[in-house]
C-alpha cells in the first residue's frame, strides 16, 4: 500500500487537521467567556451602559466562536473510536475516565448555562444571569483541564499498570493522572496561552475601531482590558512554558533535543536560534547558537549536560528494541520556534500598548477635543511624533490579532509530533494504535468530508465574525436596561417579544 495514503498516515493527518481546527476556537472560547463575564460584572456593579454594550458585543463574538468549538469537539470524541480503535482498547481504562469526567462535569455545565445566558436576558434577574456566564467560564476551564490531563497521560503515563492477559493498560491511581506535574504545567501553560489569545483578539478588534474613531467608549475599555490580559497572560505563558519545558527535558528528552536540533549531547549545551541540518546523517550543517542557554532552560544551570537526539535514540533502541525513535526534527525545531516567536510578539505588542496608553498618555487633556476623541498614544509626550505613530500601533495591533492562534497551533503540533513515534510515550507506538478494521477508503472519505466541511464553515465563520466586528456594539433597548427582577420574567409583559434569542 502506498505509504502516503496508509490508514495510519491518513488517520494522523485527520487527527492533526481536526485538532488544530478545533483548537482555533477553544482558546478564544475559554478566554472570551471569562472576559465577557468580567465586562458583565462591571455592568452589574456600575450600571454604566458602555459595559453592557461591550458585554453584548464580545458576547456575540464569543457565541459565534463557541458554536464552532462545540461542534468540532464532538468529532474529537468520536474519532478515538473511529480511527484509533486499538488505542481506545489499549488505554480506554485510563484515558476514558477524564473524558467522562469532562462530559459529566464540564460539558453539561457549559452547555446548560450557555443556553440560560443566551435566552435568559429577559427571563433572569441581573445577578443570576451574570452567574450563568461565570458558570460557562468555569465549565470551559474545567473542560480544558480534564482534556489536558488526558493528553498529559499520553505525554507521560503515570498511575497505571499493564495487564498482559487483557493486553491493555489499566488505571491504578486516578489522582496521579489528574495531578501529575505534566498535567499541571500543561494546563497552566495552555490556559495562560488561551488568555493571551483572547486578549490579543480583543486588542486587535478594539484597535480596528479606534483607528476608525468608532465606538470609542466601549473600545477604550476593551483595549485596556485586552492589553492587561495580554500582558499578564503573556507573562504567565512564558513562566509556565519554562516550567513545562523543564518537565519535558526530564520526561521526553527526545522531544526537547529535537526542538533544539541538538544532535549530540553537550555540557554545557547551547540554545540554537537557527539550525539547518542533515536528518539522515544526524548533524547540523549551519547553526547559530547561544552558549549555555539550553542547559539553563533544561536544568536551571548554565553548565549541565543535555543529551542529544542521537544519544536518546540509542538509549531508546536499547530499551525498546531496534527502530527509529526520532520524531520529525524540522517540524519539532521550527514548531517550537514559531510557537515562542508568535506568542512572544503578541506579548511584546501588549506590553508596548499598555505602556503607551498609560493613563496620563492615553488622552491628554490638551489634546482632547470632544468626549469621543480618539486616544492618541503619545510617545514620550511628543506631540509631533504621536499622531504619526498612533495609527501604526492600531494597524499592527489589528494585524497581530491572530498571532497567538498561530502560536497555539504550532505549540500543539510540536507537542504531539514531538512525541512520535509514540502515541503513549514509551508504552504504545502510533502505528499500533490505528483501527485495524477501518479501510483506507473510509479514512480517506472521512478526511475529505470533514476537511471540506471545516473549510466551508471557516469561511462562514470568519465572514460572520467580520460582520459583527464591523457592526460594533449594539444599541441598547429598554428591555436590556431593565432586566426582570424575578426568574422566568415578569408577568406584566408576558406577551413581550423575545429580546435575545435565535
Amino acid at each position, binding site marked *: 500500500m502506498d505509504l502516503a495514503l496508509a490508514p495510519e498516515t491518513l488517520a494522523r493527518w485527520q487527527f492533526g487537521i481536526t485538532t488544530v481546527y478545533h483548537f482555533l476556537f477553544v482558546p478564544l472560547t475559554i478566554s472570551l467567556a471569562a472576559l465577557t463575564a468580567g465586562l458583565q460584572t462591571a455592568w452589574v456593579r456600575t450600571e454604566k451602559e458602555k459595559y453592557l454594550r461591550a458585554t453584548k458585543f464580545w458576547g456575540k463574538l464569543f457565541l459565534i466562536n463557541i458554536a464552532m468549538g462545540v461542534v468540532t469537539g464532538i468529532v474529537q470524541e468520536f474519532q478515538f473510536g473511529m480511527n484509533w480503535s486499538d488505542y481506545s482498547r489499549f488505554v*480506554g481504562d485510563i484515558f476514558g475516565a477524564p*473524558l467522562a469526567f469532562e462530559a459529566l462535569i464540564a460539558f453539561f455545565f457549559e452547555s446548560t448555562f450557555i443556553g440560560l445566558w443566551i435566552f435568559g436576558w429577559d427571563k433572569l434577574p441581573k445577578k443570576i444571569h451574570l452567574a450563568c456566564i461565570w458558570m460557562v467560564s468555569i465549565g470551559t476551564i474545567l473542560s480544558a483541564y480534564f482534556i489536558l490531563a488526558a493528553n498529559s497521560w499520553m505525554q507521560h503515563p503515570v498511575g497505571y499498570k499493564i495487564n498482559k492477559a487483557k493486553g491493555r493498560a489499566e488505571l491504578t491511581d486516578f489522582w496521579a493522572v489528574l495531578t501529575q506535574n505534566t498535567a499541571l504545567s500543561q494546563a497552566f501553560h495552555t490556559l495562560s496561552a488561551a488568555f493571551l489569545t483572547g486578549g490579543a483578539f480583543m486588542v486587535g478588534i478594539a484597535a480596528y475601531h479606534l483607528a476608525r474613531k468608532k465606538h470609542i467608549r466601549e473600545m477604550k475599555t476593551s483595549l485596556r482590558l485586552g492589553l492587561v490580559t495580554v500582558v499578564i497572560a503573556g507573562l504567565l505563558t512564558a513562566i509556565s512554558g519554562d516550567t513545562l519545558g523543564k518537565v519535558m527535558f526530564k520526561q521526553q528528552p527526545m522531544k526537547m533535543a529535537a526542538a533544539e536540533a541538538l544532535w549530540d549531547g553537550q555540557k554545557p549545551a547551547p540554545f540554537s536560534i537557527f539550525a539547518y541540518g542533515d536528518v539522515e546523517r544526524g548533524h547540523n550543517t549551519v547553526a547559530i547558537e547561544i552558549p549555555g542557554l539550553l542547559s539553563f532552560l533544561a536544568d536551571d544551570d548554565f553548565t549541565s549536560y543535555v543529551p542529544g537526539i542521537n544519544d536518546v535514540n540509542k538509549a531508546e533502541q536499547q530499551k525498546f528494541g531496534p527502530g527509529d525513535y526520532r520524531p520529525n526534527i524540522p517540524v519539532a525545531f521550527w514548531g517550537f520556534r514559531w510557537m515562542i516567536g508568535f506568542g512572544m510578539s503578541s506579548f511584546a505588542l501588549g506590553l508596548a500598548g499598555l505602556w503607551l496608553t498609560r493613563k496620563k498618555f492615553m488622552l491628554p487633556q490638551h489634546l482632547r477635543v470632544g468626549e469621543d476623541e480618539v486616544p492618541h498614544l503619545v510617545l514620550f509626550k511628543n506631540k509631533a511624533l504621536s499622531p504619526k505613530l498612533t495609527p501604526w500601533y492600531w494597524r499592527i495591533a489589528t494585524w497581530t490579532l491572530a498571532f497567538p492562534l498561530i502560536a497555539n497551533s504550532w505549540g500543539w503540533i510540536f507537542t504531539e509530533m514531538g512525541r512520535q513515534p509514540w502515541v503513549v510515550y514509551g508504552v504504545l507506538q502510533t502505528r499500533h494504535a490505528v483501527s485495524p478494521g477501518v479501510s483506507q477508503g473510509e479514512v480517506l472519505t472521512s478526511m475529505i468530508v470533514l476537511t471540506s466541511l471545516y473549510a466551508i464553515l471557516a469561511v462562514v465563520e470568519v465572514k460572520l465574525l467580520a460582520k459583527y466586528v464591523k457592526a460594533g456594539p449594539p444599541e441598547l433597548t429598554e428591555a436590556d436596561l431593565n432586566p426582570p427582577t424575578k426568574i422566568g420574567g415578569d408577568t406584566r409583559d408576558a406577551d413581550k417579544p423575545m429580546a435575545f434569542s435565535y
Partner: protein
Amino acid sequence: MELHDVWFVLIAVLWTGYFFLEGFDFGVGILTKLLARNRPERRVLINTIGPVWDGNEVWLLTAGGATFAAFPDWYATLFSGFYLPLLVILVCLIVRGVAFEYRAKRPEENWQRNWETAIFWTSLIPAFLWGVAFGNIVWGVKIDRHFEYVGSVWDLLNPYALLGGLVTLTLFTFHGAVFTALKTVGDIRVRARKLALRVGLVTAVVALGFLLWTQAHSGDGKSLVALVVAVAALAAALVANQFGREGWAFALSGVTIVAAVAMLFLSLFPNVMPSTLNGDWSLTVTNASSSPYTLKIMTWLAAIATPLVLLYQGWTYWVFRKRIGTQHIAPDAAAGAAH
C-alpha cells in the same frame, strides 16, 4: 449487582436521556418543514428548543465518553465498525449546531432559509440513523474473535435495523410534535396537536412491529414488560393529545421512549454487542468492561454529578417554562435581525 452491570444500566440511562431529550429537539427540527408555514412560525419552533438543545446533545457526548471509560472494547468496536454512518451523524450534528447558532445572525431570507433546510435534514438523518445503529447493536453484527467488526456498511442496512431507524424517526417526530403543542400558543399549537395524532398513529404501527420482532429475536420476560409499557404509553399519549392534555401527552411520549430504550437494553443484556458469526465472540458486560478500579471511580463520579446535572438542567426547563407564539417574535427579529 457488579459494577460492570451498574455501568451497563448507567449507559442505558444516558442513551435514554439522550433519546428523550434530543428526541424532541430532533422532532422539532423535522417539524420546521412539516408544520411551520412561514418564517415567524419556524422561528417559534426553533426558539422552543433554543435554550436546551445544546444541553440535550451533551447526553450523547456523555454516553460516548462513559462507554469509552466503562467499556473500552464496546466503544472501539462500535465506533470503528459503524464508521460511515457515524461520519454522517457527525456531519449532521456539526451542521445542525452551527445552523441553530448562525441562522439568525444575518437578516437575508436566503441565508435563513438555507440554515432552516439544514436544520430539517440534520435533524431527520440522525433521528433515523440512531435507530439503525441500535437495531444493529441489539441484533448483533459480524464481529470476529478480535472484537473487530468485519462486515460492510451494507450489512448495517438490513431490514430489522432499517425498521429500527423508522421507529426512532417517527417516534422522535411524534415526541417533537407533542412538545411543540406543549410549548406554543395559537394556531401552531392546534396544528401541532393534529399532526401529533397522524404521526403518532404511524409511530404506533412501526414501533409495534419493531418491538415485537425484537422480542421474538432476543426478548425475555422483562423485555416483554417494557414492550407492553412502551406500547401502552404511546396509546395513552395519543389519547392525552386528543383531549388536549399536552403535559400528559409529552410525559407519556417520553415514557414510550424510556420503555422502548429499556426494552432494547434488556434484550441486549448481558451482551453489549453480540456477534452474529460466533456467540463466543460477542462483546459482553464482562469481557468488554474496564477494570474494577476505573469503574469504582466512575461510579463515584456518576453518583455525585448526575443529580446535579438533573437539577440544573431541570431548572433550565423551569426558567423557560412559558409557552411562546408568533406574537413573541419581534417583527425585526422575524426578519432576522436578532441583536
